[in-house]
């Protein structure tokens, strides 16, 4: 009896240890000995055209190494990858939206990322992108991202019919929006349900704040001024609220998503849409009637006329330092960054007109080149001011609250400062001590 009892206890303990071992198992090899690399990314971290997946299949045929893509909605990935990295369950390759300010905190590269400094391909990436994927003079990430610029795209036909011109100030923006609304067309497509989109006007117009009061970014980084002191930012928030109240975002726009924006714009239900260069291709492919019917202008909230450039801000690939297959990860990075493969990623994407590899010829049209020549440029606030980008989704939530009537612009600004202070404290930032 006693023997059976002891045997049973031993059995229970064995079962428990097997369970624990099972929980800890993160082996990405298949039983056959074939290597599978897991690739975790947000939806917008890889081209929606599926070119990366197609190329990965070819890579598998060539090398026998399978790439298993785990694609997560944008709004969740930013948080999920942080938890996965901390729990040691991150994929072999993972995408993270990067900028030079938040990458070290979000990725903790020394602990989590494979050092790529001595790889041949790092020397071929553009100088502008390197700071966003580097930390303490070491390169950790691979990016295909272009320097990101958000323009307001507009429907030329609607503008011509109404006899209106692209605005150069907020007053003009408001006036044309009213004319469009009078024709029962949504003047500007807004998408608060996606969480992040409505935040763009606040910080993409950051160069405007910096140009009118030089040193603003530095003061904010040194905690010598508060975001709440940025009267121009408050003005932009108030103008967004005014747009919402005047119906320029349409009725019940709070449920709109970014994905549905192309449809609304392509079907001419909305006359204006905030997007990145290359939008013309994406829209006209889905809605051929829209071909040659799209123009663009810099977003005029807060009377902004400066082009905001984000040198990073998009996804970069990192190899997981704790992966069981670091050599295979490196081999994949070497393969995908070969010249011809870079060209394929660029050509097969959904319409980006530039890529952060100087060896690949950009596709910018003369319109963009001329426009950029005629306007000043500056770095967007989230890429130059600390602790803005990590709270992007929170600010999005606050703005939705403001549109719904639950918050004021002042409360939004105070919340931004509060969250900056929280993160500075966590990161033991000297300027906040």
């Amino acid at each position, binding site marked *: 009896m006693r023997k059976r009892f002891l045997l049973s206890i031993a059995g229970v303990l064995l079962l428990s240890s097997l369970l624990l071992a099972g929980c800890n198992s993160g082996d990405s090899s298949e039983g056959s000995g074939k290597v599978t690399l897991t690739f975790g990314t947000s939806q917008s971290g890889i081209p929606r055209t599926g070119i990366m997946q197609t190329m990965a299949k070819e890579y598998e045929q060539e090398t026998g190494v399978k790439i298993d893509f785990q694609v997560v909605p944008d709004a969740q990935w930013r*948080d999920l990858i942080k938890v996965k990295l901390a729990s040691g369950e991150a994929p072999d390759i993972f995408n993270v939206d990067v900028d030079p300010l938040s990458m070290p905190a979000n990725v903790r590269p020394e602990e989590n990322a494979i050092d790529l400094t001595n790889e041949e391909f790092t020397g071929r990436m553009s100088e502008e992108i390197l700071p966003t994927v580097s930390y303490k003079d070491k390169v950790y990430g691979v990016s295909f991202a272009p320097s990101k610029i958000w323009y307001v795209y507009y429907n030329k036909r609607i503008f011509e019919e109404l006899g209106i011109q692209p605005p150069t100030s907020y007053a003009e923006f408001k006036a044309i929006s009213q004319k469009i609304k009078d024709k029962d067309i949504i003047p500007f497509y807004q998408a608060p349900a996606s969480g992040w989109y409505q935040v763009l006007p606040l910080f993409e117009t950051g160069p405007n704040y910096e140009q009118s009061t030089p040193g603003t970014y530095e003061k904010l980084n040194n905690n010598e001024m508060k975001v709440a002191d940025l009267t121009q930012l408050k003005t932009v928030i108030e103008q967004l609220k005014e747009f919402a109240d005047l119906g320029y975002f349409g009725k019940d726009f*709070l449920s709109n998503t970014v994905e549905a924006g192309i449809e609304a714009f392509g079907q001419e239900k909305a006359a204006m849409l905030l997007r990145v260069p290359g939008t013309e291709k994406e829209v006209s492919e889905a809605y051929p009637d829209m071909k040659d019917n799209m123009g663009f202008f810099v977003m005029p909230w807060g009377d902004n006329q400066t082009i905001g450039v984000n040198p990073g801000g998009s996804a970069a690939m990192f190899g997981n330092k704790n992966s069981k297959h670091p050599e295979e990860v490196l081999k994949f990075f070497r393969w995908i960054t070969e010249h011809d493969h870079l060209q394929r990623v660029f050509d097969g994407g959904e319409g980006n007109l530039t890529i952060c590899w100087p060896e690949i010829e950009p596709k910018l049209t003369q319109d963009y080149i001329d426009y950029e020549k005629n306007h000043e440029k500056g770095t967007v606030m989230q890429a130059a001011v600390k602790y803005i980008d990590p709270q992007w989704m929170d600010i999005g939530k*606050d703005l939705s609250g403001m549109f719904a009537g639950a*918050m004021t612009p002042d409360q939004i600004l105070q919340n931004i400062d509060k969250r900056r202070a929280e993160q500075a404290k966590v990161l033991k930032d000297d300027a906040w001590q």
Partner: protein
Amino acid sequence: MNVNKIYPWYFSSGAIVLYLLFIVAPALLGIYYSFTDWNSYSSEKNFIGLEHFRTILAGDPTYLLFIKNTVLFTLITSIAKTVLGLFLALLLVSGVKAANLHRMIIFSPQVLSFLIVGLVFKSLLDPNNGFVNVTLRSLGLDVLAQNWLGSLTWAMPSIMAVDTWKGMGYIMVLFIAGLLAIPRDYYEAASIDGAGFWQKLFRITIPMLMPTITIATVLNITYGLRVFDAVYVLTNGGPGNATDVINTAVYSSFAKGYWGLGSALSTILFVIMAIISFFIIRLMNRKVEY
């Protein structure tokens, strides 16, 4: 060794090991972490005492809103599920036609994941093209069409309604079982004495159902306090923070990498549930006399 004393432990040892390993140990660790500054940006864990609790309970009114929302959600959905569950159960045991079919239809949402239910209702409640508003407009009732999940007024009631719809079937099944266990003799005797429907309901049915009502209440309250998926899928706590509850705040804190703070929020939820459970268990242990 006294085998009779060991035998219960022998049978339950496996469950005890697993329970200690996967429930008790993480819970205790969570309580410990709530007193630290543990976060995703550093591998250090420094003891900071009650600082997180001070932030939640005294420092930031937003957290009090989350607690208030959780309590309100629990209270209203518990009452709604109990009342509707009882009503449906009474209806289905009263000899209505195709009772089993109706029972199955009403119970079926219970077996679906809230992710599916949430996505379906998100589509139904879409203010522009959703079935609810389209139907209202087609009936000329434009004034009743609302931004169900996007307005401060309607977002929380909409989540409560969807949650009640999903959960009332389960409560109904509990009540049906309770109703079928009540001896018919009581009703026959009451009928002979001239008792009407309401007298039978309040003098026989409800008192005899008290143990079931208590169980239903416990289930509803514990579910309500733990609510996460309903809010997360339907509104993600919005607009603003209008529908955020404790568990969405826990998720948000963990997601941001503020794990100590998230643990403190979980600990507060644990304490609230422990207090409520204590009182409910006391209530359950009271003898019901007729």
